[in-house]
């Protein structure tokens, strides 16, 4: 059963980055400590506005992601609040040691916006599809990792990242996604949002895959299977209470992500559930393979990320439940 704050029908599909930029335009004007940093990355509304009105508070360092992340740390050391923007694959891939050593080690107040995150930056192919970012980032101490589900949540996350003192990474996917939430929905950093309530199993999804999981929920409902759907918008710190409660209340869990299941959201949930309340778990996500070019729908099929695949996984874990 859908919660009252879920839009019915869902809103028009829009890019998360646009929503984030709308929120940032407002936050930037209100808070003069915010500095926008880019690594040769199309700036969007916030960057354009900053360039025109506040040239001291916006810098593009070019195709140099290592420098981008460490410059941000230096700004934070001088009490600024830098938001870095570049493609996720390069922030995580080229800037990993910088995120670890220069940002997280000293708990600097740096916000790392991971643009075009995950597998579904479809056309760009395997070189640009980040399958490892959740796995790679969630093992870094002090770092908070946020993964909004829709445009509405992207705005909430921009605000939440600013309010949290310390390093935060934010995943923003490329494809347009429908708005799932009404504006008054309950968002709190570190607390999963219950999208639907059900007793047969729980789907724990993150990012752009929450909308896909919601489709799966609707398909299952038609067959009389009622699932709880949790939007795990904060990957770290993980809402362990919600995970364990899902195990206790529904007895089976399916995780859904557009990144590697090895150490990803699936790995994180499996760690918590095995130690606290073992129930059957199935992980929907990238199964130790690189990506390739295609359309979003084609990739969802090939990499087994579609609503159909989620439905299949849910039925499988329900079968494995203890009678």
């Amino acid at each position, binding site marked *: 059963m859908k919660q009252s704050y879920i839009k019915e029908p869902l809103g028009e599909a829009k890019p998360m980055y646009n929503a984030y930029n709308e929120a940032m335009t407002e936050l930037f004007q209100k808070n*003069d400590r915010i500095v926008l940093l880019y690594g040769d990355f199309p700036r969007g509304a916030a960057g354009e506005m900053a360039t025109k009105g506040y040239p001291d508070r916006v*810098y593009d360092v*070019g195709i140099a992601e*290592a420098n981008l992340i460490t*410059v941000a740390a*230096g700004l934070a*050391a001088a009490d600024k609040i830098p938001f870095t923007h570049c493609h996720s694959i390069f922030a995580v891939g080229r800037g990993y040691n*910088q995120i670890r050593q*220069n940002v997280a080690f000293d708990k600097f107040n740096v916000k790392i916006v991971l643009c075009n995150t995950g597998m579904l930056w479809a056309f760009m192919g395997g070189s640009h599809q980040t399958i490892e970012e959740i796995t790679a980032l969630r093992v870094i101490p002090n770092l908070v990792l946020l993964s909004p589900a829709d445009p509405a949540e992207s705005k909430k996350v921009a605000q939440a990242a600013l309010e949290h003192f310390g390093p935060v990474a934010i995943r923003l996917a490329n494809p347009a996604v429908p708005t799932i939430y009404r504006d008054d929905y309950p968002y709190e950093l570190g607390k999963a949002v219950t999208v639907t309530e059900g007793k047969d199993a729980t789907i724990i999804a993150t990012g752009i895959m929450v909308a896909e999981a919601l489709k799966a929920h609707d398909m299952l409902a038609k067959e009389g299977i009622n699932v709880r759907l949790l939007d795990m918008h904060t990957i770290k710190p993980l809402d362990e209470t919600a995970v364990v409660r899902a195990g206790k209340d529904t007895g089976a869990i399916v995780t859904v992500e557009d990144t590697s299941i090895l150490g990803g959201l699936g790995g994180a949930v499996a760690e918590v559930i095995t130690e606290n309340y073992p129930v059957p778990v199935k992980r929907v996500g990238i199964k130790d393979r690189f990506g390739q070019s295609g359309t979003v729908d084609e990739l969802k099929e090939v990499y087994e990320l579609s609503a159909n695949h989620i439905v299949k996984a849910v039925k499988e874990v329900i079968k494995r439940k203890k009678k």
Partner: protein
Amino acid sequence: MIRAAGLGWVGGSFSQADVVTALVFHHMKHDPKNPQWADRDRLIVSKAHCCETVYAALGEAGYFSKQEFDNYGKLGALLQAHTERTAPGIEYSGGSLGQGLSFALGEALAARIGAPKDPSGRPIPHYRIFCILGDGELDEGQVWEAVMAAAHYKVDNLIAIVDHNKYQSSGKVIERINLTPLAEKWQAFGWDTMEIDGHDFNQILAALERADKTAGKPHVIIANTIKCKGVPSLENKNVHFCTLTDEMYQDAMKALA
């Protein structure tokens, strides 16, 4: 300090000692009683393994008790084997080479935000950032990312000092990645470039003063130094990270006496 720990970064600490001394005791604007003073000059030691002479200078200046020297590198110590910001006066937690100049650039940009401007619109920041880099460290690509960005944004409150002692961890710099011509490289990248004897205080201080007077460009001082300067028996030997033997210690104490 190194005697108490039993081992340390002997060569690179000694080669930069004169530059560190000139900065901390003669040139930088700072207050050991108020390490977080907003308008202080910052010292970013990118070659953060060479922490011992930095700790010695900061301890002498009064940032922390000199008794901390005896705990250097021990479990729970304030003074870690690579500089960490938890120690008063330390501005940068290093250890991963090639990153300090980017960090210094971030601080230098921050200093320009909201700073007063001269008639041409150039910001006049309240403080300067000094960044000591190793020569071996210049192999790292990120250094040159920062070099280009600093020149692009004309960050003239940033002063890099290369401790050019000609050795890196595994041998001579010239035999690993030849940096020659080093000064010309920095110059071509748009930096105000100076080359000095890094053990001559007059030259060090003159170069630092010249940097203050040259506007519109970041500054680099290539300090030609001698690895393990001050201990004749070890000078120009690649004493990088080593156990300090009794013989080495006695030689050093004799030379420094």
